[in-house]
């Protein structure tokens, strides 16, 4: 059980982790590579410091009555996934479940679900598709949200986003420039190189050191995003990776 105050609690829906399949064990879903990456980060953190408390704490949330709790638990164990907690909730109670479990980031493949959660102030993001397992956990940040003049209304999850990125920055800081199991990728869609530079420095001042930066300045996002293959993208509100 991870240290409740220090861990970065990440919740993922079981629908995203497991694919319905016949037999006792579920197939691997979209979120599978993500969980493996989160686990790898934890392993490397503990390697550096066996007493490390700033770790990812994964919570699996089942809102889908189609998936059976026993099969979820046995599938998790079958694949050797490290899950801190299982929560069996309903769609209506989802946000409450997240809040009660102190979830700092909610990941889903369902856009409506992610939006609903985000509007209630819990940081939420859509999962990216990974064709092949990647060497590191790739977190993409949308820089436009960082540089944008304060918009009205301020997105409900902005506070949560800022505190999450500060903690993430602390975690990233445990590793050196190269060979990190966690990569922070900044993308700005509009605005030129100057504003992307401002985003880099703003993030740095908040304790988050970015590894890769891509300034699109109005160029189409699709080709770049398909190359960058983030596990998820953080920005104002919920952003489609398939854009």
């Amino acid at each position, binding site marked *: 059980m991870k240290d409740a105050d220090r861990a970065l609690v990440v919740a993922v829906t079981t629908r995203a982790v497991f694919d319905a399949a016949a037999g006792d064990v579920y197939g691997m879903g979209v979120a599978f590579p993500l969980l493996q990456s989160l686990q790898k980060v934890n392993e490397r953190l503990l390697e550096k410091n066996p007493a490390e408390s700033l770790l990812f704490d994964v919570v699996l949330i089942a809102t889908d009555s189609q998936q059976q709790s026993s099969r979820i638990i046995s599938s998790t164990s079958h694949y050797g996934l490290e899950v801190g907690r299982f929560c069996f909730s309903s769609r209506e109670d989802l946000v409450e479940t997240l809040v009660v479990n102190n979830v700092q980031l909610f990941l889903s493949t369902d856009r409506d679900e992610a939006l609903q959660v985000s509007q209630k102030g819990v940081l939420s993001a859509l999962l990216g598709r990974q064709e092949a397992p990647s060497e590191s956990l790739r977190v993409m940040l949308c820089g436009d949200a960082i540089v944008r003049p304060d918009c009205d209304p301020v997105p409900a999850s902005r506070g949560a986003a800022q505190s999450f990125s500060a903690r993430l920055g602390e975690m990233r800081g445990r590793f050196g420039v190269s060979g990190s199991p966690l*990569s922070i990728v900044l993308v700005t869609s509009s605005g030129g190189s100057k504003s992307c530079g401002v985003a880099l420095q703003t993030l740095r001042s908040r304790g988050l050191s970015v590894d890769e930066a891509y300034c699109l300045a109005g160029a189409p996002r699709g080709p770049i995003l398909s190359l960058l293959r983030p596990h998820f993208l953080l920005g104002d509100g919920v952003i489609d990776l398939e854009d």
Partner: protein
Amino acid sequence: MSEIKAKDFAPTGDAGEEKDAAKAHFDNLKTNKPRPPKPQYAVTIAVSSRTLFNMVTERKIYEDQGLEEYVAYQRDHENEPLMPGPAFPFVKALMTVNARLRQLYPDSEELFDIVLMTNNHAQVGVRLINSINHYDLTIERFCMTGGESPTGYLEAYMTNLYLSKDSEKVSEAIEEGIAAATMFMAVKENELSDTQLRVAFDGDAVLFSDESEIIVKEGGLDTFFAHEKKFENTPLAQGPLKCFLEALGKLQRKFYAKNERLNCPIRTFLVTARSAASSGARVLKTLRSWGLEIDEALFLAGAPKGPLLQKIKPHIFFDDQMFHIEGARELGTISAHVPYGIGQKYNKGKLIESPAKKK
């Protein structure tokens, strides 16, 4: 308006694009800078950090002390602008052409778009952006890949020409069909035009394929002359830089259309070791068959290129043979090596033992 690129790419949803366009417009209202052109209309030039700026000192730190020290050094010197690198005059000249194009065609997106394409870490990027701002360079797009080869991103940014100091990355790009060259600083600095972009190209294995060069290397000069005469009316196959010359030509014609031929801010040169009498015709006929013009064709008949280039003063000179690159540099011409074709297997006329290929 003819497209400079005939490339298809998956468009973003209309709503997304509109929102981006509106946001970009809003941003530019604030900064007074013109909006960067859409990649599918622009002539995109990707430059690496070491071609844009002089990073010789920093490179040495990286090689001697490793990546962490290098990044720390760059961070410590973040507010000191870097000195110009070999591609700097070329980039300034591109900006000059853009200013003229905007005067004549205020709504057109057929412009040069300069992209910084580097595998530097984003923390080093802060110094790069500060330096770009210091010189007021119009570089609005960039990729800082933090270690990964940027080659994959060249296509995503619809790159027409890629300039780097790293010959491996350049070779990779050429293999992907993207015009690319390895840049070399000149030993001394010639004074270059600040009103006209001047680009010089070698012919064989740069604008044209290396088919004729193969004949010279394997059969000697006499065989070569006989072959070229025989096939005078058969166009040569394309070389890696042909498409870039084509893109320059399309922009030149925009000036001609507005009666600016005499005052055109782009001038192209062919500087070839071929001789006009014996093997020159095929070259000119090939260009004509492609619908391409070159402003000046200079046939050296084997004489060294350095002195002539010193007179021409191009912002960049492309050649496939290091021998010519060295000769050009020595006399003050910024040169770019195109690692293509049979010339790579030879050094000063002698066949090099090829090293085992890296896996």
